């Protein structure tokens, strides 16, 4: 999957890919103060037997948890399941529904997206990507967007969560890269000097089919040097 990190102080964005095997669960957000956790499980392309090459991976399953309220939300391309203690509610992507729970608001836009608000100041959006019917190799998958993170504490971490705190970087020496449309540059970030590439990634919150190009500095090698530690540090044993 591709990650886009908004850096409002710089009016710019950073992006990177994390390449891991299907099945692996990555921690995206972990806030010990509010008890909010978001994990994403990867899926790959649907492969044929004789296809042994590298494949793209996507977020195939999302777990959104509020440990303090004993709430869990499981989102897959098929359904949305809310666990509230011992109670369980299941919604389908075909539903058009707004659920006003005391500590959570769910808004499903039929076959398109799901907005989850865990109280004021913590709002996420899950975008549903449906495969093209005649496309044999792709599976349905999900996108996850942080719309509002004010409620999350300064202790928040995770592959996305660590970037909810201000991050500073400097771009030096923009110069032509291997692709004439994508110049390279040197980025100074977290005391590391990285070679980065100007490119763009798709944001699907507005247009869930075609997406919108977001120009960003692409960090290579699974974001090594940008993220705290390495991406394997964010692998967790299960979705919940």
């Amino acid at each position, binding site marked *: 999957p591709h990650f*886009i990190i908004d850096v409002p102080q710089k*009016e710019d964005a950073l992006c990177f890919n994390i390449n891991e095997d299907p099945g692996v669960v990555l921690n995206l957000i972990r806030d010990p103060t509010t008890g909010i956790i978001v994990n*994403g499980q990867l899926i790959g392309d649907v492969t044929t037997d004789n296809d042994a090459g590298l494949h793209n991976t996507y977020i195939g399953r999302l777990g959104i948890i509020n440990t303090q309220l004993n709430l869990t939300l499981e989102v897959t391309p098929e359904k949305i399941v809310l666990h509230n203690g011992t109670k369980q509610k299941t919604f389908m992507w075909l539903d058009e529904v707004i659920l006003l729970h005391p500590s959570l608001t769910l808004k499903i836009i039929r076959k398109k997206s799901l907005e989850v608000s865990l109280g004021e100041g913590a709002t996420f*959006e899950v975008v549903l990507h449906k495969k093209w019917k005649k496309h044999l190799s792709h599976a349905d*998958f999900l*996108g996850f967007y942080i719309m509002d993170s004010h409620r999350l504490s300064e202790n928040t971490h995770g592959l996305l969560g660590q970037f909810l705190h201000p991050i500073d970087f400097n771009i*030096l*020496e*923009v110069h032509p890269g291997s692709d004439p449309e994508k110049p390279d540059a040197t980025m100074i970030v977290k005391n590391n000097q990285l070679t980065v590439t100007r490119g763009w990634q798709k944001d699907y919150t507005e247009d869930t089919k075609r997406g919108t190009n*977001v120009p960003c500095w692409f960090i290579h090698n699974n974001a090594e040097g940008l993220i705290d530690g390495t991406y394997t540090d964010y692998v967790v044993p299960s979705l919940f």
Partner: protein
Amino acid sequence: IKNIKKRDAADVNVDGIDIHSMKIDCKITSRFAHTIITSQAVNRANVSKEALFDVELPKTAFITNFVMTIDGVSYPGIIKEKEAAQQQYQKAVSRGQTAGLVKASGRKTEKFSVSVNIAAAKNVTFELNYEELLKRSFGKYELLIKVNPKQLVKQFEIEANIFEPQGISYLDAEASFITNDLLPVMQKSFSGKKGRVVFKPTLDQQRSCADCPTTLLNGDFVIKYDVNRETPGNIQIVNGYFVHFFAPKNITRLSKNIVFIIDVSISMSGRKLEQTKQALLKILEDIKEDDYLNFVLFGSDVHKWKDTLIQATPENLEEARRYVRDINIAGWTNLNGGLLAGIEMLNEAQRSGTLPERSASLIIMLTDGRPTKGETNTQTIIDNVRNAIQGKYPLYNLGFGYDLDYASLEKMAAENNGLARRIYEDSDSDLQLQGFYDEVANPLLTEVELKYPENAISDLTQNNFKHYYDGSEIVVAGRITDNDLNSITAEVTAHGAEDDMIFAEQADVEETTKALEEREYIFGDFIRRLWAYLTIHQLLEKRNAAKGEEKANLTAKALEMSLQYKFVTPLTSMVVTKPEDNEDKTALADKPLEAEATRQSSQSVVPSYSVPATSHRYTSVDGD
């Protein structure tokens, strides 16, 4: 001026907000301009509506006052120390309220905007005041008014009244949006000491076409003028403060020795390098035969065109043109190496006596990035440059674009009697470069010192200037401490092209005060405010280059004066309280700094990479 409007309203008087007047009233006395923008509106709807007051003012101006009057109740802005205002503001922010009111908006302007909810059938008046000292450039003073009401306004008026004790020699006004039909609407007149410009289009004259609901008033309204100069200088005294304007004419131009230090690192590749070459070629056309020049290029390494400065003979200029055309990109940014090579070249020329005895030496450096090769510590580079120049020649730093440490360039230039200028990435970048060169192309005097009777005056603004350029003006102001002083004598010493010069100027206190007694033109203690404005600007510039205790002292002094004279400077903020839903909300008007300017997404720039629009950008994970 962007007028009051209903947000998102594409047309006039939509949804009930009725703007019935907009007036820009400007009084200029002795180059000091005081502008008041007043706008009045009524909410004719049955429900409350949001009115937006959105104006642009020159970056060189200081806001002095803002008042919002809603249905007879006034809400004045209060100017406070920035830190104190920020604390108040933070409280407001923590309650989820409001944002800053002033933002950098263009090359020459910053934008002030405030919006407020107006109850049904209520009215609002916005009034913004700002002041600036007009700078003389290419022989003219220029007052810029940005006009953009976005809709038709029943009573729209720009009025500027100028009073110059020396007498006005020239006055013109132009607007980028003017049409043949509107030309007669612009009234310009001057006689003796007074000048006047009035622009008062009717509703129909404002229309972009007959019966159109849209306005054609959108663009720059510029007033240009100059004053008579029977003597090289002019001293004016009012209420214990004096100002001395010094701009001698008919002086033989000095030859100049100029070193261009040009960044050719890889980030300059493409259009930036092409524009730089175009500008240099044009500059070479204008360079005089008795001038000396050289080029130093720095990428990863430093290359000199010639080992020493050479005279601008036609043959040498032809060779220089060939050299400029062949400039290529060469790696990283060795800023320190480039600067020191250029400075050493001038030092060596001075030591060996190869340059004309009476000439002006200067350095123009152009860079678009931060140092990445050789010495990269900016403070060390600044120290190296200061130690190498030792005050001998001014250094002008041109910062190309935004991917650079402009504050350091400013500091470096300020320490070396020069200034920094940003070159905006745009289709006219080459013209901006040439324009800067033209400003310094004709030095008339060097080592200019303006002296006044020591025992009778105090709090003098800067009175030593490395160079005086044709078409500019030196301004010095101060306070008179001797109450019994009948006259001020100023002595100006300088090196000219042929001789050392001494200009003497005398002004009778009573006489000049009398000459300025034109009540209708004088807004308060304008010379005192002019002195305060100039002093604060210079303190802030000095502060940029200062360290430790000196910096703290300069900051304290500039802050004290900003508060005393009620100027919104980089050290103060204006707290604006506005009533919203029965609860007062606060917002801050801060002065944006050029050093903190960022690329404007609306600008038509072609950088080597694109900048994202600020909307629809979230931290996210997704796939394609």
